Structure formats: structure tokens, C-alpha cells
């Protein structure tokens, strides 16, 4: 019995339900080497709960997170998410359905900001709100608040983040990820390489999202952060690399 299984006492609050999930990479350019990241995973996540993925490097934590977001394509299994009252299986949904889920239901925060040339960091953050119909003015006000909370100096707000330091880019990314509350949030090492003050802010943002009912799945390298935010821990174990016989 996996510890991430939810007792049937509270079936009502599940927003994410993973069954029999497998992921194997086949590297055609490297002699067909097969790398099994994980197999037969079952995970459930409820409203307002934070599940921490835990395991050594190479255990497949990021691969699982990316699979939940449909950035990686699982080999088998299902990832059923509650999207506006409908169940969508991210493992088999059409690209358009996946985009719809990402637009309104599922948010993903990675350590790295994929820089869009020339767009100011204020607009990068505000865009998340205007894309949902919020007026430009109020979206910008909220974006400023969020950037200030994450200690991004005001003189940087109008600049494109291409020239920012790694830590600053990461915080812009977090601001963008948290400015809108998604019912499901996937966090890949959101506090990696942040200083204590910013770590505290991120912990507070996660707590606020949980209090608002968000289901969170995250990888937290920092033990103190994990202890502070995680309600349950899901252990992943490294798989063996099996060379392809064919």
C-alpha cells in the first residue's frame, strides 16, 4: 500500500488521481537504450493538501512532475485531473485539452525561467492575469505587489529578465507561478538557491495557496521548507537502467 494513497474516508476532495503510471525513455539516438524512470505509480492529491515527492537524484521526481503536466508523455497509466468539473486524463487528452487544463487548472513552477525576448518582467507576471480577462491596470498592480514580495527591486520591473541573475529569474518565475491560484500546482524545487527571506516568502505563498484550496505536488530539496509545507511525502526509488535487448 502506497503512502500516497488516500483513505476512503475522504474521497470527495481528490482533484488529482494517478493510476498505474509508467514512464520509460527510449533513446533512439543512443542505440535504443531504455531508461525506466518509474512504473506503476498511484498517487492521489486532495484539495488544500501539499504532497512532497521525495527520493534520491535520478529517482524520477522531476519526470513525474513533468508527466503530470503532460510535458512528458507517460507510457501507460492515467492522470485524471478535475478540470472545471470535468475529468480530463492528462496522459491521453488531446493537445488542446491539455492546453485548456494548463490555462485554468494546472500551474507549473520550475526553477528556470524560459525567457521571452524583450518582454518586461512586470508584463511576464501580469500576463497570467490578463490572459484570464483581468484589466491591464489591476493586473499590473498585483504583479508589482508580487514582485515586491519576492524582493525584486523596482528598477528591474520594466526590464526583460534575460540579463537578470539566476536567483532573480527564479523569483520572477515564482511570481508568475503564484500570481494566479490554480486548483493544482506543480512545484519543481521552487526554493532552490533562494536566500532565507525569499524562502520564507515562498513558504508563505504555498501556505496561502493551500488555504485557498489548491492541491500542490512539489519537489523540495530544502528539508526545512518540506517540513513546513508538506502534508504527506511520496517516496520514489531509482530504477535500474536496462539496456535494450533489441
Amino acid at each position, binding site marked *: 500500500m502506497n503512502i500516497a494513497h488516500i483513505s476512503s474516508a475522504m*474521497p*470527495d476532495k481528490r482533484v488529482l488521481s494517478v*493510476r498505474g503510471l509508467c514512464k520509460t525513455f527510449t*533513446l533512439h539516438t543512443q542505440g535504443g537504450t531504455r531508461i525506466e524512470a518509474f512504473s506503476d505509480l498511484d498517487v492521489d492529491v486532495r484539495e488544500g493538501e501539499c504532497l512532497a515527492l521525495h527520493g534520491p537524484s535520478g529517482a524520477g521526481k522531476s519526470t513525474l512532475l513533468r508527466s503530470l503536466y*503532460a510535458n512528458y508523455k507517460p507510457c501507460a497509466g492515467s492522470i485524471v485531473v478535475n478540470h472545471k468539473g470535468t475529468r480530463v486524463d492528462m496522459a491521453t*487528452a488531446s*493537445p488542446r*485539452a491539455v492546453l*485548456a487544463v494548463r490555462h485554468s487548472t494546472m500551474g507549473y513552477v520550475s526553477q528556470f525561467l524560459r525567457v521571452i525576448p524583450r518582454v518586461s518582467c512586470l508584463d511576464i507576471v501580469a500576463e497570467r492575469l490578463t490572459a484570464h480577462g483581468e484589466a491591464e491596470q489591476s493586473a499590473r498592480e498585483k504583479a508589482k505587489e508580487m514582485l515586491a514580495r519576492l524582493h525584486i527591486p523596482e528598477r528591474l520591473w520594466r526590464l526583460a529578465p534575460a540579463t537578470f541573475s539566476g536567483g532573480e529569474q527564479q523569483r520572477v518565475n515564482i511570481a508568475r507561478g503564484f500570481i494566479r491560484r490554480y486548483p493544482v500546482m506543480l512545484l519543481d524545487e521552487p526554493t532552490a538557491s533562494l536566500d532565507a527571506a525569499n524562502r520564507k516568502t515562498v513558504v508563505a505563498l504555498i501556505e496561502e495557496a493551500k488555504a485557498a484550496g489548491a492541491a500542490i505536488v512539489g519537489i523540495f530539496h530544502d528539508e526545512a521548507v518540506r517540513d513546513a509545507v508538506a502534508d504527506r511525502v511520496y517516496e520514489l526509488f531509482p530504477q535500474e537502467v536496462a539496456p535494450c535487448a533489441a
Partner: protein
Amino acid sequence: MTAAQAATQRAFATDAPIPMHILPVDVDALDAEPALLSVRGVSHYYGERMGCRDINLELWPGEVLGIVGESGSGKSTLLNLLAGRFPPSVGSILYRDGEGVLRDINRLSEAVRRRLLRTEWGFVHQNPRDGLRMRVSAGGNIGERLMACGSRHYGNIRGTALDWLSRVEIAADRVDDRPTSYSGGMQQRLQIARNLVSAPRLVFMDEPTGGLDVSVQAKLLDLLRQLVRQLGLSVVLVTHDLAVARLLAHRLIVMRRGEIVETGLSDQVLDDPQHAYTQLLVSSILQG
């Protein structure tokens, strides 16, 4: 089975026990919407030589579809077929026009075809010289397309032309200059303005950033991204640049030797490519 039912079935295609409170109350409206462009069993041969083979695809309203692959993979052949520049040897290309009528683009009367090309479609060439009239002023290049759509009032046309020049970040005092006096990046932006001024529903783009310096490319990419979003355009974009594809396209088609070898969500195709050829393409990118 209707498209809506099919979509519902897809959304529920799982054996996993699912909490009962999540009711199938509504099908994703996106999936129920009819396609703008449907390509069915299209092949094209240049004499003996195959240009592309057995192509099936759909483009939905508001979607940017990227076609990637190396030179000679058939991307440009496919783009030209989709844009009705020549008919395929086999198969059909169906377009749902502004009135909702599904039309086979290779069976249109010449009058209807011209109307579509002028009003509902745009085509952005890699080389702006192929899409601009080089002996006509910048304002004239934009105004010509408006007049083709029925505008007659000189003041309005000039006003719109000036507005579009500013949207593509060309100074108003260059309105009377010919494109020959423009830089490559400005010419490309002018070509985009000329195409978008008539508010087309569907725009074809052939390597729109291909011939430009990297810094100019970044500016154009950002501009394209904004315009596509603001105008809700449907775009078919051919590019060999995977970074451009990732930034602009929702969905990708990977072509090799005239055939589609992989298709899917852009970031999934690029981050977790399934086909050997796509893996090769992705792994060949130089890390900048």
C-alpha cells in the same frame, strides 16, 4: 458519434477509480469546436519525385501549428498546398470560411478564391521581397491590401496604415518611403502589417524570422507572439528553428522525407520526443 461525444470519451478514457463528485457536467468547449482547416490524405508529387505523402491534419481556430523538419523534409511543399498555391496530386484540403461554410480550397471558383486570399488569408514569405511591392511606398503596401478588401476613403486608409506601422514599430515618418530603403527586419515587419491589416482568420508563415539577425529575430518573435494573441489568429508556421517553434506554436508537426513522423503539444514534442528522427533533431540543437 459527434465531435463533442468523441471529446467526452477521450476525456474519460481511463479505468482509474475517480471521485464521484467530479461530474461530467461539461465538455471542453474547445474540443467541440469545428476545425478551421482539415487536410485529408494529401500527397504531392513533382513528377516522379515525392514532395509529401499521406498528410492528415487539422487546425483549430486560434491555434498556431508549427511544421518543423530539416531542408527537403517537405515542410514548404505542405505549406504551399495548405495555402492553395498549387493543388495536391491526391487528397483534399477543406477550409471553414467566415460564414461557416466548409470549402474544398481546390474546387473554388476563381472569384471566391480571390476573395478568400484577399480577406480571410494571409501569407508571410521568408523573403519580404516576395510579399511586398518594392516600388510602392510602405503606406501604399498596407493600403493596397485594404483597398482590395473594399476600402475607398483615402484618409481612413492612410490612418489605418499609420496605425499598423506603429503596431509593427515602424516610425510614422517612414510611411512614404519605399521598402527598398528599409532594413531586412523592417521589411519583414512591413510584410506582416500588410498581411494583418485586413484582419485575416488564417495566416501562413514560411520561416518568417529566417533571414534575420538574432537580435532582430527576437524583436520580430515578440511582435508576432503579441499580434497572434491579440488578434486570436490561426497560424500555420513553417520553421526549422525549434526555439521559434517552441515560442510561437501550440502544437507541432515533425516532417521527414515528406511524411509526418510525430505530432503533439509543442513542449512535449521538444522535451520528450518519441520518434528517432525528432530525438535527433532536438539533440542536434547547439546549446547557446
